[in-house]
């Protein structure tokens, strides 16, 4: 009997799996605990000189560390400031690494590591006066040499710097004295100072570049000047930062901040409701009404710079008629969609850009008017139409759902455009296909300039930026608009520049290369026990000075 059983066991495929199982268990058991942080030793800040007053008689009891917990949805691809691509990652990095200037809640440029700056008349010289007495987390001083190092690193062609474009007009950097740097420009670039708020231009300690596991080409342990010091990162799980005792500015309340990586929006919301985190971003949009009613949490629908629109293929034989495009704009009830599908997380567009951008001027509206839409379609000879309509899923707030609603509205004016979806990389490949191969007619997209200037928004209407040269996926071409945009790019007088953009905006609005939808709000939800939570209008939360009520 026993021999029989043995033979039966050993010859069975299940035997293989038992071996696998046992092997794996052995391996798993002998593996180091899964939450070992990647080897990083936090750099010790220089010792504070001891006070010369009478020492306290009783040593104070070490207080428990206060921790602020935030749940985000993305595991950072990299913590290297120059390689930044997403606002959520920049949001986290900025606890540790700072820039010369920063953006405030209203979207204005404010001093940070630079106290003041001047731009020459011809726009070819930009001088920054740096803040004195600032130290990096490793104790080394922040000065012109370190600023120069960082800017040159950002311009180094060997490094991966996805958002290098705003800085490529810098010819060279000069350290004039210990606290002054001068940038010599190849050509004037008016938004340059504003661009220096980007994390791409973050200042890290030159000394740290070959330490703590870093290499010149890839920073994994950023050492900056920010209020918090990078402590540890467990990939896919969390990032922890600790308060910097020698911070030059106002010290934050919490000793520790922990960013937990939670890809699922519903789980993030559960964490907040369970009291296991203090702040989350991007909860499921459909829960916004309930969250607003909940006394345990506060909902902050932060204004952002992200415009959501449907890009119309302006080269298409049917869609190149302006009347058709305008009809599409009148056909959609944006207000209803914002209310019912986005649950309030949007503001109707009244210009081709968000109001927080420099160069914005209010242009007009396309109110919901299905009769007018039908009339325009009839006039252009297309009473019924069949259009190819694609949208991403999960890329923007309620993207696919809103697209479906829009499809419904279009149907009511005789435009048959059922919406299809696909994964993001395939979607991008489809909409950026060169004109001969491009099959899209309507596609849903969002655009958020990385710095608050019309320059980065208006490239969406610049014909030379169409694929394969860029992302003007509407293939819109209007020579007057091109002329105005190119002129504004170099105009050093801010008032004149504003007017140029305003003029261009009016033409674009009338030409309707897009179905102009809304400016998306960035939902931030946090515990009612906390106060001091704000936002920066580039899809970022501002909770450095959060504290218990």
């Amino acid at each position: 009997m026993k021999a029989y059983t043995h033979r039966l066991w050993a010859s069975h495929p299940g035997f293989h799996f038992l071996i696998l199982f046992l092997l794996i268990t052995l391996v798993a058991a002998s593996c180091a605990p899964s939450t070992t942080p990647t080897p990083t030793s936090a750099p010790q800040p220089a010792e504070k000189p001891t006070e010369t007053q009478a020492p306290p008689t009783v040593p104070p009891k070490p207080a428990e560390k206060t921790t602020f917990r935030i749940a985000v949805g993305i595991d950072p691809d990299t913590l290297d400031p120059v390689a930044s691509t997403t606002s959520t990652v920049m949001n986290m990095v900025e606890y540790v690494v700072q820039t010369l200037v920063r953006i405030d809640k209203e979207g204005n440029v404010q001093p940070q590591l630079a106290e003041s700056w001047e731009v020459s008349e011809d726009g070819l010289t930009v001088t920054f006066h740096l803040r004195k007495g600032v130290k990096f987390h490793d104790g080394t001083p922040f000065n012109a040499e370190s600023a120069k190092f960082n800017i040159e690193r950002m311009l180094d062609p060997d490094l991966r710097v996805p958002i290098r474009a705003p800085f490529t007009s810098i010819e060279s950097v000069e350290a004039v004295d210990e606290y002054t740097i001068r940038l010599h420009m190849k050509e004037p670039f008016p938004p340059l100072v504003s661009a220096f708020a980007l994390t791409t231009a973050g200042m890290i300690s030159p000394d740290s570049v070959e330490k703590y596991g870093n290499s010149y080409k890839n920073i994994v342990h950023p050492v900056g000047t920010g209020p918090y010091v990078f402590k540890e990162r467990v990939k896919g799980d969390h990032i922890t930062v600790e308060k910097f005792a020698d911070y030059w500015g106002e010290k934050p309340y919490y000793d520790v901040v922990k960013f937990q990586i939670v890809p699922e929006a519903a789980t993030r919301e559960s964490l907040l409701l369970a009291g296991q985190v203090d702040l989350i971003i991007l909860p499921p949009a459909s829960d916004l009404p309930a969250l607003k009613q909940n006394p345990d949490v506060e909902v902050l629908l932060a204004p952002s710079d992200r415009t959501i629109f449907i890009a119309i293929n302006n080269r298409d034989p049917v869609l190149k008629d302006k009347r058709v495009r305008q009809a599409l704009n009148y056909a959609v009830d944006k207000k209803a969609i914002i209310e019912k599908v986005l649950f309030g997380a949007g503001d109707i567009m009244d210009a081709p850009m968000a109001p927080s951008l420099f160069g914005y001027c209010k242009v007009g509206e396309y109110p919901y008017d299905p009769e007018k839409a039908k009339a325009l379609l009839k006039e252009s000879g297309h009473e019924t139409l069949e259009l190819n309509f694609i949208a991403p899923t999960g890329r923007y707030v309620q993207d696919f759902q809103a697209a479906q609603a829009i499809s419904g509205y279009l149907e009511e004016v005789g435009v048959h455009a059922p919406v299809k979806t696909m994964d993001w990389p395939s979607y991008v490949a489809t909409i950026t296909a060169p004109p001969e191969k491009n099959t899209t007619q309507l596609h849903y997209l969002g655009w958020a300039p990385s710095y608050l200037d019309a320059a980065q928004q208006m490239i969406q209407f610049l014909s030379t930026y169409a694929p394969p040269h860029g992302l003007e996926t509407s293939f819109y071409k209007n020579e007057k608009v091109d002329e105005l945009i190119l002129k504004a790019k170099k105009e050093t007088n801010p008032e004149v520049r504003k007017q140029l953009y305003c003029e261009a905006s009016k033409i674009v609005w009338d030409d309707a290369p897009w179905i102009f939808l809304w400016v998306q709000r960035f939902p931030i939800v946090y515990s009612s026990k906390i106060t001091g939570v704000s936002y920066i209008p580039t899809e970022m939360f501002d909770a450095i000075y959060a504290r218990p009520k």
Partner: protein
Amino acid sequence: MSGFTRYLIQRLVAALLTLIGVATIVFFLLRLLPGDPARIIAGLLASEEEIQRIRVQLGLDKPLWMQYIIFMGRLIGGDLGLSARTSQPVLVEVAARLPNTLKLAVVSTILATVVGVSAGVIAATRRYSLFDYIASFGSLIGISMPVYWLGLLLIILFAVKLHWLPAAGAEKPTSIILPSLTLALFSVALVARMTRASMLEVLNQDYIRTARAKGLKERTVIFRHALQNAFIPVLTVIGLQFGALLGGAVLTESVFGWPGIGLLLVDSIFARDYPVVQGIVLIFSAMFILVNLIVDILYAYIDPRIRYG
């Protein structure tokens, strides 16, 4: 050389060829997917110059056959390359997450086995009783319930309402409870049904009747004789389930923010991070090939007929 050594070499060569085959298939399969990795990794705000620069950095500007040769060359040297997204070695990315998935797979499987086999045995021995019906119905629900929904339900109950357990993450010792429960439920159903069916079949066999006739205690009959033989097909089911879980329980990892390999795999596919996807597929293939190799070698060692046959 001895027959055993020859057999060993044969198997090693076969294993190597299999790995090369897997590597080739995954290499070309990935590049069939639409989408430009350089553009996705750089993000929409990157300029065309930067995207082209990244393309060159990733070696994607070279002709396909050259990319393949470079890839295979590195692979043979044991180099899985760097993640296109993070610029860190693929091995580091995988090693950071694999233990978490292993932990989850092992705990879920143990849970499913213990509960499933017990339920199956009881259902089989108390056939047509209330327990049997409840167990069958429970199994049906377990197999049908969507993991995503179940996971969220458990979170809402145990974390939000009761405040007993963490809703997400892998940091606390109690963090593994909810995710493994979620995963186990599906397996429990399968294991229980299989155990019950298999036990019923075995219990009808002659040798069971003999054992009972010999006057053995019922418990001995059930566990020593019946279960031991009934367990074989159940082991297959458990093994297959475990293999599936190792593949990374993506939905569970996603819902619970569990930093495992499944999530890494899916994120990498969505980001078109070819080196990481290739690396994960190869590592798993290597693991399975290794296990099969070990088992077959043990076999050959024990049973001379196999080497010569």
